[in-house]
Structures are given as C-alpha cells and as structure tokens.
C-alpha cells in the first residue's frame, strides 16, 4: 500500500530524473547497508500486515485453558497467554491494526498539516499567523499528554486514537511544508506559472506540492515510527483498542501483570515486534533523507 504511494509520488515528483534517482538509490543503499536492511524489514512488516491473518498457525482469538501460560515451544513459537491464546499468531495478526492506525494518522496529518503548511508558507500574512498560532498552541503541551486529553474528550475509540496521533504530529508537518513552500514562493517556475494565468490554488497544487513531495515523504517515514509508538502507548494505558483484539500495545499491557511472576514471553514478543517496527521506520526515514537531502546526511 505505502509502496505504491511512495513510488507514485516519487514518479510524479522526479519523473525527468527517474534513471538517475534509481542509480542514486542503489548507490546510497550500497553505501549504507543498514538502509537496505530497513527496506527488507519494511517489506516483512508490510507482508505480515497484508497476509498475516491468513497464514498464522492458530486462531488469534481461540482460547484453551489446557494450554494457558505455556512458555515458547515448538507448537507455540512465542508461547501462550493466560487464556491459552497463541502469542505468535496474535503478534502477527496485530501488525495489520498497528500499521493501519499509524498509516491512517500519518495520512491524515500529511493532508491537513501539509496543506496548512504550504498555504502558510505560500500566502504568508494572516494565514501564516493563524496556522502558526495553532501549531504553537499544540506544541505548548507535552504531546503524549495532549493525545490522552483528546482521546478522553472525543471518546475512547480507535478512530479517535488516529485523530489524536494526527493532531500531535501536526506542527511537525506544518513546519516542514511551510519552510519548503516559503522558499519556492517566488521561484522562477512559480512566477512563470503565475504569468501564464494560473490561480493561487492551482499553483499550490500543481507546481509547489509536487516539488516538496520528496521531503514530505521523508517526514512521513520519520513520523510513522513515532505514530506507532504513540498509538501503542495509548492502548497500553487502556485507550482505544479493546481486548480481545490483538494489538501490540494492549498485548504488552496484558503481559505486564505476568512479568513479576516470570512469564516474560507474554510482554516480550509484542514489545519486541513494536520495537522492531519503530526501529525499521526510523532507519527508513534516515535512509530516505539521505536519498532526498544529501546535505543532512550524518
């Protein structure tokens, strides 16, 4: 799903330089094998999200008291929880939900924050002031705390977790989009487009947006990891996802009570899955930034 959007946007933004961008990508990946690894991990996660529910060995919701709280074994790779549900199946199936929550919130903030930021950078003046004031107000809160408050106010559902995660990421997207649009506001190609009689909104959508797409894609993959962490944190404290739905954060919460009596596998495996997913997106973000913005390469 993301792969196609990625490719599509890369293609629209960088059509003339297609060959060179691919060889450049190959060069960056060859130079930094970690980025290659991150792409492989990402493919694995995407695969688990797509076909996970059809290939897992056990029903993630099927409980059996005979097999409760068993440590990892050949039949249950990651062990079972106190209801005898297979942890491996639950971890794999949960990938889709976590992935969708993160993706939906990032898509939402990309549209809202991206447009608000471009408009602020392009028009300046009042638009800039209002968007800036909204961003500043959001930034005045510790972000996770604000997310808790929003979910509490809107109601305790998965949709509202998505919305809350989008809102706390809003200032980040605005900042990037605003800076990029501001630089291009008086660029030659924009003036040419204006002279040919294009309206402001047409210039924004057709001329400026495609140009800042690559840098926004980097922002997306950098915030994906954060979005996953935030959503899992919210469901860890009992917001949004309801049991028995498999989701990484809530699975860690369910396993938390058993940690002190030594049943480590209940919390470890979903927690590790969470960690690997976030790690993968962070590496991917760094890798993409190297591709798009070589000056900031570390």
């Amino acid at each position: 799903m993301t792969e196609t959007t990625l490719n599509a946007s890369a293609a629209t933004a960088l059509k003339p330089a297609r060959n060179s961008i691919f060889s450049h990508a190959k060069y960056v990946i060859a130079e930094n094998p970690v980025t290659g690894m991150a792409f492989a991990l990402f493919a694995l996660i995407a695969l688990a999200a797509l076909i996970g529910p059809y290939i897992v060995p056990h029903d993630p919701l099927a409980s059996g008291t005979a097999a409760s709280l068993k440590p990892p074994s050949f039949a249950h790779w990651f062990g079972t929880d106190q209801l005898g549900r297979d942890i491996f199946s639950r971890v794999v199936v949960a990938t889709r939900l976590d992935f969708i929550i993160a993706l939906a919130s990032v898509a939402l903030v990309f549209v809202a924050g991206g447009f608000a930021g471009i408009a602020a950078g392009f028009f300046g003046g009042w638009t800039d002031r209002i968007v800036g004031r909204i961003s500043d107000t959001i930034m005045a809160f510790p972000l996770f705390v604000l997310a808790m408050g929003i979910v509490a106010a809107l109601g305790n559902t998965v949709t509202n977790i998505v919305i809350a995660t989008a809102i706390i990421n809003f200032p980040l997207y605005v900042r990037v989009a605003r800076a990029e649009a501001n630089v291009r506001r008086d660029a030659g190609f924009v003036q040419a487009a204006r002279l040919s009689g294009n309206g402001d909104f047409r210039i924004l959508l057709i001329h400026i947006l495609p140009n800042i797409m690559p840098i926004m894609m980097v922002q997306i993959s950098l915030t994906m990891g954060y979005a996953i962490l935030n959503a899992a944190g919210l469901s860890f404290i009992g917001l949004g996802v309801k049991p028995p739905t498999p989701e990484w954060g809530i699975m860690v919460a369910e396993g938390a009570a058993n940690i002190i009596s030594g049943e480590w596998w209940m919390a470890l495996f979903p927690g590790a899955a969470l960690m690997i997913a976030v790690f993968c997106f962070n590496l991917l973000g760094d890798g993409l930034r190297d591709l798009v913005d070589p000056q900031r390469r570390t």
Partner: protein
Amino acid sequence: MLATLGKRLVTVIPTLIGVVIVTFLLTRVLPGDPAVYFAGPAATPQSIADIRKSLGLDRPLPEQFARYVNDLAHGNLGNSLSTGRPVATEITSRLPASAELTLLGLILSLVIALPLGILAAVKQGSWIDHTCRVVATAGVSLPVFFTGLLLVYVFYFQLGWSPAPIGRLDAFATAPPQITGFYLFDSLLTGNFETFRAAFSQLILPALTLGIFSLAPITRMTRASMLAVLASDFVRTARASGLDNRTVILTYAFRNAMLPVVTTLGMVFSFLLGANVLVEKVFAWPGIGSYAVEALLQSDFAPVQGFVLTMAVLYVALNLLIDMLYGVIDPRVRLEG
C-alpha cells in the same frame, strides 16, 4: 537579568491563554456530555436537564469559559466524579511523586549522555562513537513501557536486586514526614536512612526507565554540537596557544556545545512528561499520571482536564527555565535581552 525575565514572562502569556482555551474546548465543544456522566445510568431527560442547569452547561459558551477561568484563578479544578475529592488537592498531593521520578530520570540520563556524547565526538570513529550511534538510534525506538517491564523482569524477577514494582515504598516502610514531598530529601532531612534506602530502591528502576528513554536525543545532540564546536576556529586557537586537551575540551568546547543541548532539553521534557504517564502505570507509581489514567478509564473528566492543564503549565514553565539557563550559559543572550 530581571528585565530579561520580565520580557520573557510576557511572551508566555499568549501561550498560557492558548493552553487554557484548549483544555476548556476539550470538555465543552467536543461530543461527550458531562451532564450525562454526572446523572448516571438511571438518568431521565429531566434529571439530565436539571444537572446541566446546576453545572451551568446550559449557559452560552463565552459565559461558561468566563466561569472556568474564574474557577482556575481561585485554584479550583473541579471535583472528581468517582472519588468526590477536589482535583486540585489530589494533583498537588501527587505531584511530588511524579516530579521526583522525572527529575531523577533526567539526572541519570544527563550523567550518562553528556560524557558519552563528548567522548564520542572527541574520539570520532572509535568504539565509543559507535556505541553512541547505536544508543541514539535504538533509544528512540524503545517503547518506554517495554523498557520498564524488561528492567522489572531482569532486576526483580531474575536477579532479585530490586523490590516489587508497587509504588514509592514497600508495605513495611513508613513514609517520611512531608517537608518537600520528595521522599529522598525528606528522609535525609529527618535523618531516616532506612526510609531513604527503601525509597531509593523503589525509585531507581522507574527513574532508569525514563533515563534510558531520554538518553538518545541528549547523546545525539551532545555529539553533534561537540563535533561542530571542536572543528571551530577558537578551539584551534586554544590548542595553538598550548592549552592542554582537558582545558580545551571541558572549558572552551563544552560550554559552547551546551547551548544546542539545552535547547534540546525542551523537546526532551515534552517526551519525559508524556513517558512519565506510561512509567507510572508500569511501576504502579502514585503520581499524577496514574491518577489521570485511572480517571480516564472511568470517563471521569475533571481529573483528566486538570492533569492536562497542570502538565501544560509545567511544560511552559520548564521551557521558560530553559531559556533562563540559556542566558546563564551564554552571556551574549543576556546582553541582547
């Protein structure tokens, strides 16, 4: 210095107004009716209407807002639905627990992150540098509640070094008399070393969890800004003048490299205050975070609103403090102010 402080305080006012408006809007405009919660499950439309009237929810929004601000000015954050106790007293009594935890976490993190970042920059490309890079990348990927549980498993269940994660003190110890509210200080001030030990052993794991969490951004920033400073002209001049390595790094380079690090602390605090909630949940820590989580799960809105407001005001105050610190480190900032 005082003039700078005054000027900076003035810029805080619009931020605070924004914060108050948002916490107000969170309850009033969005769906979810407090009157229905108050009335309980056996409510009739008539009783809900009565309650709405007695709460002043039938008034126009500006009037409700004025009332809210008036309550805030009198230190009234409303009452909790489930316990009936005023939110303000509950939060004040729980705040020291959260503050003690967060501060120790930050101190632990600074004690590890600053030397690590400096060494990584001084010995670029060495194993310390690589350690630093791994810490910085892995650290941001670790869910803080997961780190906490891992620490509990290793240090409580496997090694048996730390006590069970059940709050600030175990069942056998008694709390020190309240002076500052920080158990570590209070027990030392009253000379009660037994309690100090008990409180410290409860505190160290959650504080370490928070410390590990904030390690990554501080290490990364310290390394990056040390690298930039070490490559600058004045460091070259200092070296050329024959100053020894220690003086150059600690006196000249470090002080200048601190500026971006202090700026990062603002972001670190935002993360820390949020992570605090999760850590308190893992370790059953009786702070304001766990208070808010309990209330949240019961749809008890006043405590959550009070909690969000308290956290935001704290965060604004911390950012103000950071700005002041900036002036202490860099005299140029003071002159401009």
